C-alpha cells in the first residue's frame, strides 16, 4: 500500500482549556518528550509545543491530524508561514 503524498493541507491549531491541542496540516512528529513535542508541517516550517506531562493522543500522516493532551504552555512556529506565527504567538 503506497503512502500517498497529498497536497499540503490547511494548517489549524485548536487549544482547549490549555489541556488539549489539536492540529491539522502536520506531516511528521520529529521528537516527543513529556515537556516538548516537535512537529514538521506540511506547509513547510516546524512547530514546537511546550508544556508539562504532554502525551500524544493521535497522529496520522495520511490525514495530517495530530492531537495531544497535557498542560499546554506554548506553541512556537519556525519557518514556513512567518506572518501567521507572529500574529498568533508573537
Amino acid at each position, binding site marked *: 500500500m*503506497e*503512502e500517498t503524498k497529498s497536497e499540503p493541507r490547511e494548517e489549524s491549531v485548536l487549544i482547549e482549556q490549555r489541556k488539549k491541542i489539536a492540529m491539522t496540516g502536520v506531516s*511528521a*512528529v*520529529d*521528537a*516527543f*518528550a*513529556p515537556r516538548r513535542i516537535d512537529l514538521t508541517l506540511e506547509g513547510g516550517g516546524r512547530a514546537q509545543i511546550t508544556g508539562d506531562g504532554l*502525551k*500524544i*493522543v*493521535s*497522529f*496520522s*500522516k*495520511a490525514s495530517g491530524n495530530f492531537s495531544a493532551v497535557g498542560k499546554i504552555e506554548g506553541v512556537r512556529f519556525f519557518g514556513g508561514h512567518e506572518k501567521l506565527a507572529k500574529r498568533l504567538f508573537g
Partner: protein
Amino acid sequence: MIRNDLRNVAIIAHVDHGKTTLVDQMLKQSGTFRENQVVEERVMDSNALERERGITILAKNTSVHYHGVKINIIDTPGHADFGGEVERVLKMVNGVLLLVDAAEGPMPQTRFVMQKALELNHKLIIVVNKVDRPDARIAEVEDEILELLLDLNANDDQLESPILFCSGRAGTASRYADKEGTDLTPLFDTILNHIPPMEADEKGPLQILVSSIDYNDYVGRIGIGRIERGTAVANQDVVICNHNIIDLKKRSKLVNLYQIEGLSRVPVESAVAGDIVCFSGMEGINIGDTVCAPDKVEAVPFVKISEPTVEMTFSVNNSPFAGKEGKFVTSRHLRDRLYRELLRDVSLKVEDTDSAEAFKVSGRGEMHLSILIETMRREGYEFQVSTPRVLYKTIDGKLYEPVERLIVDVPEDGTGAVFQSMGERKGELVHMSAVGSRMRLEFLIPARGLFGYKSEFLTSTKGEGVMNSIFFEYQPYKGDIRRRDTGSLVAFESGEAVTYGLFNAQERGILFIEPGTQVYEGMVVGVSPKTEDINVNVCKKKHMTNTRAAGSDDAMRLNAPKKMSLEECLEFLNDDELLEVTPVSLRIRKSILDSELRAKARAKEKKAQ
C-alpha cells in the same frame, strides 16, 4: 454454474487460539471420523517451532462435508514475514473464519492477515473461541474485534459479519454469548449461509492458479491451487505460463491429481472449476504459475512474489570445535539442504559464492532466516552464519534500501522510549492512536534499523510491548544507522573457563558463559560497554604458590551469565563476527580468530578509512 456443493474458507487465527482443536471437532462432527477414532496427524497442528514463536509457518489444508456441501478449510500463515503467502492463500477462498481467543483477544499478527482478507472483499465469520475459559472477557473481545475491523476500514457488510461463540474443546457453538451451544451446527450453518458459493465455468478451457507449493521425496514438487475455469483430468497435457513471466510457456503433463478429503490427499480422476486440487509431475512448477489447457494459454493475474530484503552468508563451520556436535557438517550437506529448501519456500534465494564452503541466502527478513537456521539446527546441521545484511537496489543511479512498516502496541508510558529508539534508527511515525489502554504506533523504518531492535524494544517496554513488521517498499537510502555501540569480550586462550578467570573478566562487561565452558581463541564470551573489543583470559587459573593475606581468598561471586537466544545472537553480531550454530550450542566468534592477525586487520582498516 454456481458451485452450491462447495465452500472454500480460510481460517485466520493466532497460534494457540484453538484452530487445531476446533477443526478436529468439525472433522468429527461432520462424520469425517468415527467418534472414537484418534486423529493421529492433526493437519492444523503447529510444530514445536511455531508454538515457541507464536506464529503459524506452514499453511495446511483440510476439508469436511456437511449437508452434502464440501467445505475446504485453508489455513493461513500467521506471520507476515513470508510476504505474499497470505494473499496467495486468500485468493483460493471466498470467505474467512476469524478465530479469536476469548481471553487474549485479537493479536497484532492476525491484523495483517485480516487486512488482506478485507482488501479482497471476503465475507467474514467471527468466531470468539474458548468461551469456556475462566478468564474469558467475551464482551470486551467483541469490542476489540469491531475496533480492529473499523481500524482496517472494513465495509458495512463486513462490519455486520455474523459472530459466533464457540468452545473448540467442547465442540460447541452458539449465536449468543450467554447461551451455551450444544454442537457446531450453528457454525456449519453460518458457513453455508454466509459464505457465497463460487460461480464457476467448468466447460471452459482449463485454468489452475498455483497458490501454494509443497514437496515430498516421492512425487517431488506438489502444486496446490484452485481451478479457476474448466475441468482438470489426471494425465492431461497442459501448458504452464505465468502472468509476470511473459515468455514462460512450458508444455507439461498433469500426472497426478488429488483432492483434499479430511486430512489426506485423495487421488481423483478429475476435478472441476472451484475445486482446490493438488497436482504433481510438473518439474519446476512455482507459485504464481497458471496451468492451462494447451489450446487456450492464458495466465491468471497474480500477486508477485515479493523479493528478499535481507541476506546472510551460510558457511561450513571452521571453528576449532567444528564437527563435534553436528551430524551434517560438510559443504555438500549444507548446499543440498539449502537448495532443497528452495523447493518448498519460494520467498528464499540461495546463491553459490566464489568459495565452495559459503552460500549467500536471502529471505524476507531476519525472522524468516532465523526460522530456517533453527529448523536446520534441529535437523542436526552444523554451520556458521554471518550478520544479516539488507539487499540494496540502485534505481536511476540512486541507492535504495528496503523499508518496513513497523507496528508496535505498547503501554502508554512506553511511547517515549519507542520514539527515542525510532529517532536513532531513522524510523518515521505515520500513525498513532490509542487502542484500549495501550498506544499503537506505526512507523516506516529501514530494515537495517530493525536489526537488534527487538531485544531493546522488549527491555524498554518491560516485556509488555508487541511489535510486528512487514516489508513496505524500497525507498532512498536514509543514511548511517548506529549498529551497535558495545564491544565484545574475546577469549584469547583456548581451554576451559574457570571461576578465577571469569571473575576478572566480569569486571569488563557481561559474560555469556559460566565456569566449565570450553572456549577457544577468538570466541566471544561477553559484551563490553565500551565500543572497542577487549581480549580477556577466562582460562586463567589461580596459582597455588602465592601466599595471600587471610580472607583474600573469600568466595568469588560470579554474576549470572546472559543466555542468548538465536535471535539475540543474530542481533548481537558485528560485521567482523560469525555465529557458530550446532544442534547443541550457539557460539559467537570473531571471523579472524588469532588476536594478532585481528589487530593487524583492524589497523589496516583504520588506515584505509
